[in-house]
């Protein structure tokens, strides 16, 4: 090691000043000892006593807040790392545990999540200031380029971090992002395969994204940041002209301003984390984990559509930009995802050189402002497309909607309906376009709402005392009747059956289009009461739209049951109670005598038992569905599996497919597990906390 002459003098002085140091306290002597051997005082001096031309100013804080934001990410990231597990079966699970079970986990994750967003905002501000102030000019070109690389590293960390919770949102956003990487010419597919760790998304996608997010990218970032900061010190602060005040030292004036700015950034981040909880408190609602900090969606499921798939807000402009190239085919996507963003980055890299031209600086400023304004506009467009249905006035579109419903959106029919009025036709078609926008927006809003419900349910399930099985959360989600029931029903049953509360406002419209019984509360007393109601049995909620409309049951309910001599009101009520008990839905307050009476009436060969079997009442199977265990899980599984079985409708089965029956070697329409889920859902038999 070589030393400058003055430094040598220092060393000699300090070593010969043993007398002086003996007058110091033990701490002072320790400090001297350390300084002798490390020279830390000089380093500290170097670090803190940077000259700030014109004195400390608020406009110089942006770079420091960025370093602060990064440090926050480093600290919170390391602590998150201490609880995170990157694999397809543990990522969501460990993030759930951090967020909802660990003390303070929500705060830790909340800070990490929202500071990442703050960092993107601070980056934009820092870049904007550097460009406007012309701080990219000689001799600071290299540092400007380093800054741009740092920006890309930060964006890369944001992108990779989004996947790590392995929820639906991160999963689908990553599929889009990695597919876009795949269209890079020549190397694209290889890059994609390397990043996702194979051809399918799974464990190695997570381990790789995690390694990038917590290792490669921050490692590179730290290296670059060290060079960025040392070059910044080498060239000195780029002072904003004109300088009116005397110079000052970095410590303590500028440090104070920087520290205040850091605290403000932290306060904003904490505010964002806490606002939902505060709002709930003010509204008098209980604060729950979902109010606290970053959101966690439902676990990633490749087989489940996620119509609310959107990137994080700061990437929305890129997302929207792809839509600009509608109709351009593969060229459009290549332009939108690769060429244009690449060109923009290219121009930014050239700024220090462009800045040498006469109008170069103005161009650079205009270009940067243009890009930021463009990104802002695209973000606004994306948000408007998604939330359009919330703020558009639908009243003036009522007539257009009616015409749409009448004509089914067919242009020829519309022309006829309007009597060939061309001006009117154009006006209505324009309104139809607005309606289409509303429909798309509504689809997004519905999907976002559903995503929230799914996430809340997954979190509820994960919190069961039994905890998450080793196969992971997806197994639990797929085996949950409350989550899967509605989907299975919509897909396989809803083309005929309704499932709607008859008291709901939309019930009449839904029942009018259904062609089989309404299964809402099937197995319960309320359902049975409707069936045994002469006014309802042949209505759309029961047999009205089926082949049994004129069947024996309808004539029985509309005939025998209305004969007060044969069937007293109490008798009917007893039957209702007994049937609900068969399904396992007996009201706990019901009298045992009433149950017994009802059961006896159903069994009676002169009454229900004339057609229906119940237990061993001697009635042969085949004439009407067996009522033994009617509405129970076993009974429902049976009828869904094969309604043509003699236990159910036999030959008189209307149109219901045998969902669980298939020829040998073929897959049935529904697996036994799916049928069980449907039965459980119809019975509302699912986990409740």
């Amino acid at each position: 090691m070589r030393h400058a002459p003055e430094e040598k003098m220092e060393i000699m002085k300090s070593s010969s000043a043993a007398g002086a140091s003996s007058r110091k306290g033990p701490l002072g002597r320790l400090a001297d000892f350390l300084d002798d051997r490390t020279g830390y005082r000089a380093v500290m001096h170097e670090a803190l006593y940077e000259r700030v031309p014109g004195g400390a100013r608020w406009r110089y804080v942006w770079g420091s807040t960025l370093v602060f934001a990064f440090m926050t990410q480093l600290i919170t990231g390391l602590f998150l790392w201490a609880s995170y597990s990157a694999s397809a079966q543990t990522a969501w699970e460990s993030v759930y545990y951090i967020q909802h079970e660990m003390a303070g986990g929500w705060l830790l994750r909340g800070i990490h999540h929202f500071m990442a967003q703050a960092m993107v905002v601070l980056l934009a501000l820092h870049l904007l200031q550097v460009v406007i102030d012309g701080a990219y000019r000689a001799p600071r070109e290299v540092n400007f380029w380093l800054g741009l690389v740092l920006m890309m590293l930060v964006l890369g960390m944001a992108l990779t971090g989004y996947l790590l919770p392995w929820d639906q949102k991160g999963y689908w956003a990553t599929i889009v992002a990695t597919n876009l990487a795949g269209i890079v010419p020549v190397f694209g597919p290889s890059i994609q395969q390397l990043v996702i760790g194979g051809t399918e998304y799974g464990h190695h996608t997570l381990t790789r994204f995690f390694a990038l997010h917590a290792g490669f990218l921050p490692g590179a970032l730290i290296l670059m940041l060290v060079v960025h900061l040392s070059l910044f010190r080498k060239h000195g602060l780029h002072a904003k002209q004109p300088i009116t005040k005397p110079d000052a030292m970095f410590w303590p004036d500028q440090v104070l301003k920087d520290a205040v700015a850091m605290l403000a950034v932290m306060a904003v981040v904490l505010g964002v984390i806490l606002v939902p909880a505060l709002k709930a408190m003010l509204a008098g609602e209980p604060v729950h984990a979902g109010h606290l900090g970053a959101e966690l969606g439902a676990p990633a499921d490749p087989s489940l559509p996620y119509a609310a798939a959107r990137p994080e807000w700061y990437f929305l402009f890129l997302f929207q930009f792809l839509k600009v190239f509608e109709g351009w085919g593969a060229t459009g996507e290549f332009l939108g995802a690769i060429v244009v963003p690449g060109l923009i980055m290219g121009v930014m890299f050239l700024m220090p050189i462009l800045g040498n031209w006469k109008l170069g600086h103005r161009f650079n400023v205009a270009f940067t402002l243009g890009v930021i304004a463009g990104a802002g506009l695209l973000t606004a467009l994306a948000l408007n497309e998604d939330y359009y249905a919330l703020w558009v006035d639908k009243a003036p579109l009522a007539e257009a909607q009616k015409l749409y419903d009448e004509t089914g959106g067919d242009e020829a029919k519309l022309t006829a309906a309007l009597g060939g009025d061309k001006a009117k036709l154009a006006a209505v078609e324009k309104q139809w376009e607005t309606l289409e926008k509303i429909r798309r927006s509504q689809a997004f809003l519905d999907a976002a709402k559903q995503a929230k419900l799914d996430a809340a349910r997954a979190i509820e399930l994960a919190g069961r005392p039994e905890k998450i099985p080793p196969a992971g959360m997806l197994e639990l989600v797929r085996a949950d009747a409350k989550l899967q029931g509605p989907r299975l029903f919509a897909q396989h049953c809803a083309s005929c059956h309704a499932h709607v509360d008859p008291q709901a406002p939309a019930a009449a419209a839904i029942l009018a289009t259904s062609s089989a019984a309404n299964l809402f509360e099937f197995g319960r007393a309320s359902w049975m009461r409707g069936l045994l109601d002469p006014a309802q049995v042949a209505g759309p909620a029961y047999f009205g739209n089926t082949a049994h409309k004129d069947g024996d049951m309808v004539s029985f309910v509309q005939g025998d049951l209305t004969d007060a001599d044969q069937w007293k009101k109490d008798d009917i009520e007893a039957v209702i109670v007994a049937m609900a008990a068969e399904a396992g839905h007996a009201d706990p307050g019901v009298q045992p005598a009433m149950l017994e009476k009802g059961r006896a009436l159903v069994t009676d060969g002169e009454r229900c038992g004339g057609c229906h079997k119940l237990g061993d009442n001697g009635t042969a199977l085949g004439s009407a569905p067996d009522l033994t265990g009617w509405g129970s899980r076993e009974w429902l599984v049976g009828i869904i599996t094969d309604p043509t079985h003699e236990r159910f409708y036999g030959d008189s089965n209307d149109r219901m497919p045998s969902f669980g029956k298939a020829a040998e070697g073929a897959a049935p329409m529904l697996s036994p597990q799916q049928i069980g889920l449907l039965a459980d859902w119809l019975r509302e038999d699912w986990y409740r906390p």
Partner: protein
Amino acid sequence: MSRQSPDPAPGRRSFLTEALAIACGGLATLTPVAAGVWAFLDPLRRKGGAASFLPVTELAAVPDDGVPRQFAVIAERADAWTGFAAEPIGAVYLRRGKGSDTVEALSATCPHAGCFVEMEPTGRCFRCPCHNSTFTLEGGIVAPSPSPRPMDGLECRVAKNGSVEVKWERFRAGVAEKIVQ
């Protein structure tokens, strides 16, 4: 530390020394880098499993009304070290014309960027919820669409026992040609 002694003058053998120093240091450092990169590149030699026909449903479950219905594709799969018993791995839309015994299959994966294409609630077309790529019920592009190609058709056959089997393949997104991934 040699505080007082002047810097030694470069010797004659310095080029050789420098070259050797760089070579030794470089080799030592490159070894772990090479090992790392070698392992990191492993995914490149992994190919998607050979496409095979998977039973998806049976013929009776595909109504012959020309309207596509969504079906889950269920298969065993391996994810690195984990082997999964049969579970949903994706979805297809199956469509059968009036009185027809043949079924057409479309992959539910959007050829644009890989999102999950859904049927419009009106049932008149397919739409991808991500970038609004719109397709006809036959899978054709409805212009203008961000998607560079129509929905990907999958080979589909009906076995003698009525089992509808689909050749499950994934294709590269975002390009005009249909390239198996």
